[in-house]
């Protein structure tokens, strides 16, 4: 059995493909930067993604947006490499968006390599559903997912086109700050079991399963006069503080943007990037009353408080960043396809999934939970024929920093491994980039079970997680040789 697994792993490595190849990563070239933001708020009620139950938006609490930064390096008039980094207020990208967007960009931006678009979801749970059939949605009075998806693709193409079109000679600086935002959400009990958002007040509570990373990796982009154009903020936390509401809401990123605009620069484009945060959220697991009281004393909601913490961290490093702007840097952008081994569904898990799917169907459940179980049954049926799943990752070098994306809700520990072993000065680990692939749990989390670490939540298991780490590091470290 062990030998089979090893064979599989080497097979998987062979299947790693480089889609976008950069000839040189170490030499410095002149930077061109463009940035733009666009409103993606629908004009009508929509179905909201992110919970098992169907929710239709009743109002718009604040706008949802997409923000893009276009980067190009040139050697004289020759393009050396490029990237368009996009952050979007959406729970995750379904296959309905990235590929059609690439097709559209081929038409709207001829000559631009659309595979170089890095499309990241902030994971707000109060944004649109973008696939038909996921929820049972009323046909009347609600903008349907297909219609919103088309609207979103057009908006994304527009903001990418704007950012690309506006690129001009500019500079970049990278800095590190700190803000306590993301909190590990998996409670562990005396019997070894784990539970997402489990009670911590019970006598059998023993600890929080994993760690947190409160480092804020930041990239500032500047124009030729050192005026700030954009800031990319990599926070190890999905934006889901108000996740159960029936409203359109960009969650804490709205507050971050609002406060940065008020306190630093009104024109600054702000890209929110979630770090490796599969086991992280903004929800407090203990000391809740003390935190609530502080909010009351400050007169802030918690999303405003998160906005305050992140903005304070950005302001704290802003002048330092401004003093260290680089206009010519090594830049490389690789897009890789990795074939990762799927997490195998066991007979026991199959039986459980079947039972649950049937029970929910009988109950007339209209949410996505039934599909969640049914997909596990479907996976079992094809897992021997399709033992791997292909995922796209983007690896970039910008000066002394690396950016590594993945399409998962990736557990914190994998991000720490990448940051620890990377040769880059700073390594931005960005999850939920490209078509979403579910949670990527660690071995210890899978042993503890609980939502986010059960087979229904994990298309890829911890072996695949380790492989993703190794492949990502291999590419980063090649770029920094």
């Amino acid at each position, binding site marked *: 059995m062990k030998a089979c697994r090893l064979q599989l792993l080497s097979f998987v490595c062979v299947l790693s493909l480089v889609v976008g190849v950069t000839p040189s990563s170490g030499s410095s070239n002149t930077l061109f930067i463009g940035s733009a933001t666009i409103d993606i708020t629908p004009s009508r009620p929509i179905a909201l993604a992110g919970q098992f139950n169907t929710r239709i938006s009743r109002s718009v609490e604040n706008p949802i947006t997409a923000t893009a930064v276009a980067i190009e390096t040139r050697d004289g008039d020759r393009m050396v490499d490029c990237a368009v980094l996009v952050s979007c207020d959406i729970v995750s990208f379904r296959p309905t968006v990235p590929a059609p967007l690439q097709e559209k960009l081929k038409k709207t931006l001829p000559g631009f390599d659309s595979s170089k678009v890095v499309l990241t979801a902030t994971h707000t749970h109060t944004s649109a559903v973008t696939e038909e059939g996921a929820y049972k949605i009323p046909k009347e009075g609600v903008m349907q997912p297909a219609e919103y998806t088309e609207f979103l693709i057009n908006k994304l193409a527009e903001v990418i086109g704007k950012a690309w079109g506006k690129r001009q000679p500019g500079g970049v600086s990278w*800095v*590190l*700050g*700190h*803000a*306590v935002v993301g909190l*590990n959400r998996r409670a*562990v*009990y*005396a*019997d*070894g*079991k784990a539970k997402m958002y489990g009670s*911590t*007040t*019970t*006598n059998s*509570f*023993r*600890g*929080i399963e*994993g*760690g*947190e990373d*409160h*480092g804020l990796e930041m990239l500032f982009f500047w124009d030729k006069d050192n005026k700030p154009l954009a800031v990319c903020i990599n926070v190890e936390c999905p934006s889901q503080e108000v996740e159960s509401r029936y409203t359109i809401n960009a969650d804490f990123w709205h507050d971050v943007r609002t406060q940065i605009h008020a306190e630093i620069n009104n024109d600054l484009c702000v890209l929110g990037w979630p770090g490796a945060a599969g086991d992280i959220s903004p929800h407090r*697991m*203990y*000391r809740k*009353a*003390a*935190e609530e*009281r*502080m909010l009351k*004393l*400050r007169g802030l909601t918690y999303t405003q408080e998160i906005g305050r*913490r992140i903005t304070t961290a950005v302001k704290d*490093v802003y002048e*330092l960043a401004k*003093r*260290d702007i680089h206009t010519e840097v090594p830049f490389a952008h690789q897009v890789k396809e990795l074939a990762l081994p799927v997490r195998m569904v066991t007979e026991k898990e199959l039986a459980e999934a079947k039972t649950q799917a049937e029970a929910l169907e009988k109950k007339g459940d209209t949410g996505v939970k039934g599909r969640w179980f049914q997909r596990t049954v479907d996976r079992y049926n094809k897992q021997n024929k399709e033992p791997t799943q292909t995922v796209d990752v983007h690896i970039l070098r910008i000066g002394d920093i690396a950016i590594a994306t993945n399409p998962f809700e990736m557990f914190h*520990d994998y991000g*720490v*491994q990448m*940051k*620890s*072993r990377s040769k880059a*000065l*700073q*390594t931005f680990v960005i999850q939920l980039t490209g078509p979403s692939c579910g949670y990527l749990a*660690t*071995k*210890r989390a899978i*042993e*503890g079970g609980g939502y986010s670490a059960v087979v229904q939540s994990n298309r890829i298991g911890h072996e695949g997680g380790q492989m993703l780490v*190794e492949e990502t590091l291999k590419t980063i470290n090649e770029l920094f040789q």
Partner: protein
Amino acid sequence: MNANIDRRQFMNVSLASGAGLFIGGLGRISQGAETAQAGSLLVGAATADITPDRPVPLTGATSVRIAREILSRCTANVLALESREGQRTVDQAILVSCDLGVIRPGIQEGFRKHLAGRLPGFDLDKLFLAATHTHTAPETLQERYDEKDYADAMQPKEYVSWMYEQMAQAVVKAWENRAAGAVAWGVGQAVVGRNRRVTYSDGAAKMYGNTNDPQFRHIEGYEDHAVHVLCFYDSQKRLKAAAVALACPSQSVGGNKLSADFWHDARELIHQRHGKDVCVLGFCAPAGDQSPTILYRKAAEARMDRLRGLTYTQELGRRVAEAFCDVVGVITKDIRTNVPLIHRVRKVDLPARIVTEAEYEVARKVCEEIDVRKKREKADAWTRHLYGLVVERYLAQQKGDRKTYAVEMHVLRLGDVAIATNPFELFVDYGVQIQARSPALQTFLIQLATSGRQHAYYVPTPRAVAGGALNKQPFTNYSATVAVNVVGPEGAQVLVDMTVKNINELWNVPKK
């Protein structure tokens, strides 16, 4: 090392029998008021400089370092509290935060004796000392290193006598200058403490292990970045003293200079912003598996320090001070003058970590090897001391002794805040458990507080213990082996339950 450690073994502690057994060992040293009635609050504060003017051996290393220079001054900061109804004292407390490595066995008892008769009307049992855990403070244990290595330096026993008097003068001053005052509390955040235990693919754990290793899998446990703040004001609502607790020992500084570590820098900045007379008590919350040491992204952090023009210690002080000032600005809206103050002092017997025969054999062999060595190596005194204690404990166990470890526990209610002490380097998970289960609005935990007759050392979690057994290398799974654990996970769970039980009583939570 078995990589497939049973998850139950990882987290489970068989508590029921332990708790039942040891609740009977709970003794009451000092009785606080039983009801949470609000009384008027009297506050006194003072600072003692406990920096010797002579060379001194430093604590916190495996071999002796003599400090001949001062990087920053070590202080002891004293807070005296009394609540009154009319002229009647309801309850009282004196808290002393010391820039020391630990409160060595006998130190608190000796200090209470030193104070005898100098604090009329004060019950000396209601005073406790707590160490900030600076590793560049004077050593207070004479036999910590080989005495001959101290050369011309001030001997620890000599230093202790001098320190006692310095601190006694501050305690008397704080108690005597207590006056009608007020209190406010709040919580902020600062990234200071980091979990320092690294876990590898075979399940082995290592304190400060290399994370740039293909076998590195994760940081073992959690971190708690809360900065707990208690502010004390005079009758004009001017800030007089502040107690600040965070889950991080002050051990960012190495070398041979005397230093109060980041608490010095934090105090300096707080003094700049709130006045030089504000007495700042730094406390270390449960942080046995924490330290300021950065385990990954080190180059980026170091670059940011360079860009700021700060040392890492200064940067830590800046973060603490920023969080403190941020909280102070908010909690001034909620300053209270009449709050309940209840202070209970308990003696709790915790089940000791039992030394196995295999561990005894390892320790015995190490001791024998060191004892026959013609020339002692640098860390031999330290190693011999630790392994010698393991041998002693095993032999005592065989005779039916040392089955428990006695702890003096202080539990206070001050308004909506609970304060609870323990003498250990207690792993952060236990602090999280206490905070999560406490009925108090905010639970202010202080480790390395008080001292008993034996060393307290680290108290690890089951998952930490599973990271490796005692062997001849003292740094194997350091902080979670029997060499540095007189209390293990079983005793820790009793400590948690007893702490929560005592807090519950102060909040009149019905027993389940």
